């Protein structure tokens, strides 16, 4: 147990929230993208978070020990159906005049970006507190 390893825990939180923010930016930037290399409209991407546990194999060996080591994220493509919008002038419109737009809800993305930003700030606060503890620990014996 060291203060530096606690910083790593906060860093994992920062990393995952940053990834979430990146995906939100990517989603909003592509909110009108109707063509992708995979064909069809852009699909919303989401970061799915999972708790990281250190040494998962040995967990049964010492059950009472705290194994938490932060968080990890995975990028998942949202499989919700594309948004069908009537726009016959659009170059990608079908025979019936419907265009398949990305399955992105702008309000959801904005709310998610606020949550991500707050969570990022919370991790920064914990990181700074840990840092001040580490610096204080360096003063042992000076007094």
């Amino acid at each position, binding site marked *: *147990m*060291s*203060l530096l*390893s*606690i910083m790593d*825990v*906060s860093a*994992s*939180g920062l990393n*995952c*929230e940053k990834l*979430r923010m990146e995906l939100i930016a990517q989603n909003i930037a592509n909110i009108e993208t109707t063509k992708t290399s995979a064909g069809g409209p852009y699909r919303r991407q989401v970061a799915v*978070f*999972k*708790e990281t546990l250190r040494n998962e194999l040995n967990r049964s060996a010492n059950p*009472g*020990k*705290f194994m*938490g*080591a*932060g*968080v990890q994220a995975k990028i998942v493509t949202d499989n919700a159906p594309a948004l069908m919008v009537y726009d016959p002038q659009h170059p990608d419109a079908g025979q019936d005049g419907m265009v398949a737009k990305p399955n992105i809800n702008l309000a959801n993305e904005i709310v998610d970006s606020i*949550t*991500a930003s*707050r*969570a990022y700030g*919370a*991790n920064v*606060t*914990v*990181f700074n*507190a*840990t840092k*001040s*503890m580490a610096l*204080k*620990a360096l*003063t*042992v*014996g*000076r*007094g």
Partner: protein
Amino acid sequence: MGFEVDNTFRVIEASLNGSLARQKVIAHNVSNINTPGFKRFLVDFEEQLANPQRKPAQLPLKVTRARHISIPVNEDFAVTRDLSPGLRADGNNVNLEQEMSLMVKNNVYFNAALNQINKKIAVRKYVLSDGRG
């Protein structure tokens, strides 16, 4: 009378370790604030320190010579998981305000314990310098 007249150093060290354990748990909880279904951890090291039955986990340092001193390091404190359902729809029961207030308290506690150690060392230094320091 040896250098360690009392057990203060040992006690403060144990509480510093407890404070570190709590900081780690808080960092873990906060980093998982957006993890669906996550349940927060907590460590009540004060109660564990107060418990006279407590047996510190002795994880001795490896010694390569018989005359080396093995110091018990890393007293392990039991970490419990709060399985309450919480107020959020995603099953996560981390409350940011609660974690932040615990963290600030923990920080103050850690600083207080370190100040205590520094004062003890200062007193020892004063004595060693014949009171001239």
